[in-house]
């Protein structure tokens, strides 16, 4: 399958597509936590790193098959997520953001000092098990599951927490349980993304998973439209391709990201696609067609 694809798509574009896919998985995870449930998590890269290192270590030191490594990466990340999530999300207030920043930093320091993680040099020679097929198969599955989730009872509960946590509680939603659940799923996806990343680049070190990575992923979620899957996809595609296109302004990239967040929040908090709903598109289309028919009946 992979060889077939490589025949049709140039290797450079293939690389970008794989990166988009990995970023999508990361962004969809963060979207569930922040966009849908309204809990700002600023440590997504930390969970990604846990997934990456878990996966890499299992492959390098224990010779585990990729499927096992991938799953273990997700589970480890999710378990850590639950551990720091429960005390933090139990409270009403915005502690999660600070806690996750601190957590990601601690994770970075831990891996920097851990023998088995290669310390400052990181890990290399990771089996290159990630390819276009694997990534996009996962992306499709995750998008489908995600879309289904958001239309269901638990999905509505998550949205209600973002909108008004108190009213959600009064309506019978156990907000703590759902916040932790969203966080667990989101960090699981971060772990998966991390594993895919590690087995694609075949080399990881603690620097790859710094605060700025968390910021990038947040931007992808926010740009397209928080809480909206099509929005997250749009944001991810744009912000994965942009650095390639704008390579010459590399240094100013973060400046731009920072300003973008502020500007978006003030002028278009729902992102590029945020306010537009499927039903609005249907209505506009119906109106457009109505006008056309009226015009033709006048002429005729």
């Amino acid at each position: 399958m992979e060889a077939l694809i490589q025949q049709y798509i140039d290797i450079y574009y293939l690389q970008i597509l794989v990166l988009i896919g990995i970023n999508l998985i990361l962004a969809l995870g963060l979207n569930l936590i922040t966009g849908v449930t309204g809990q700002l998590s600023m440590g997504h890269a930390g969970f990604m790193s846990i997934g990456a290192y878990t996966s890499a270590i299992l492959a390098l030191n224990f010779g585990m098959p990729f499927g096992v490594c991938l799953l273990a990466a997700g589970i480890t990340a999710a378990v850590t997520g639950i551990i720091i999530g429960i005390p933090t999300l139990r409270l009403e207030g915005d502690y999660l953001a600070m806690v996750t920043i601190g957590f990601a930093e601690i994770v970075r320091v831990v891996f920097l000092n851990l023998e088995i993680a290669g310390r400052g040099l990181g890990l290399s020679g990771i089996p290159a098990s990630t390819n276009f097929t694997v990534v996009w198969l996962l992306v499709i599955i995750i998008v489908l599951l995600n879309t289904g989730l958001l239309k269901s009872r638990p999905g509505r509960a998550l949205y209600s927490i973002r909108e008004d946590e108190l009213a959600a509680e009064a309506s019978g939603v156990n907000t703590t349980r759902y916040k932790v659940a969203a966080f667990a799923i989101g960090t699981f996806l971060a772990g998966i993304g991390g594993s895919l990343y590690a087995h694609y680049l075949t080399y990881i070190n603690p620097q790859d998973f710094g605060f700025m990575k968390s910021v990038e992923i947040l931007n992808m979620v926010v740009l397209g439209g928080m809480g909206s899957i099509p929005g997250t996809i749009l944001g991810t595609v744009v912000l994965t391709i942009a650095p390639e296109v704008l390579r010459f302004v590399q240094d100013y990239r973060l400046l731009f990201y920072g300003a973008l967040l502020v500007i978006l929040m003030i002028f278009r908090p729902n992102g590029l696609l945020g306010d537009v709903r499927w039903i609005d598109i249907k209505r506009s289309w119906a109106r457009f067609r109505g006008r056309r028919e009226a015009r033709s009946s006048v002429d005729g």
Partner: protein
Amino acid sequence: MFWQQLVNGLTLGSTYALIALGYTMVYGIVQLINFAHGEIYMFGAFAGLFLVLTFKINIFLAILGAMIFCMLLGMTVERVAYRPLRGSSRLSALISAIGVSIFLSTLMVLVRGPNVTSYPAEVMEIATYNLGAIEVSSLQVMILVTAGLLMLGLEVLVHRTKIGKAMRACSQDLDAARLMGIHVDRVISFTFALGSALAAAGGVMVGVYYNAVQPYMGVMAGLKAFAAAVLGGIGSIPGAMLGGLALGIMENLGIAYLSSSYKDAIAFGILILVLLVRPQGLLGRATTKKV
């Protein structure tokens, strides 16, 4: 050994306290965690450095200059990035704050490069005093005294002046304060200015104390100061002071008796512990919000 660490801890702790005060005051009045606060502290350190290098002034004037600069910076940030979002969701304001934080730190990297610089030695004459087994440097004394005076000044301002009363009123009930004729926008600006000034002072002092100034110094310091504010009770001014000092002491004891490579983890660990055991902090009241 213990007493030495105590002295070191109090010194470090006073700087944490100065930064923590900014977090707690802003949170108390607009319920926003000002992520950019750490960057304002960093700008303070650089502002002081700039003044010292350009005008060859001493440390006290540098502190003063940095405080003025950061007051303006803090007020500008509030005006541009937070005020437009005051009616919007909490999440929007938080994200905007993160945006400002990234913008400011990247700006400094672009302007001054990512490397560590330091204050020239002439900024302050350092003498050491020996009190029994403890070595105290004049720099430490200066930090303790200056921080102490600033905090005292803050207490006086908050409890004995009209603007202080307005601040307290706003932190209790913003709408009621507005109905009483208090100019809420001005009070909020003032609160930001105050917190930024204190952080700036902390920045200069830390810059001189550790002989290092770099664009990302605000990230860790901000995080730790936030932990300190939560420890003391977020929203409580004496809490921030207490939390800062306590954190400084605990961190120093941790470095001395545990390991130093995980010293940053101490603040984080304390944060989680507080949230687990007593989320309102040491001095915070378990407030029941008005619904």
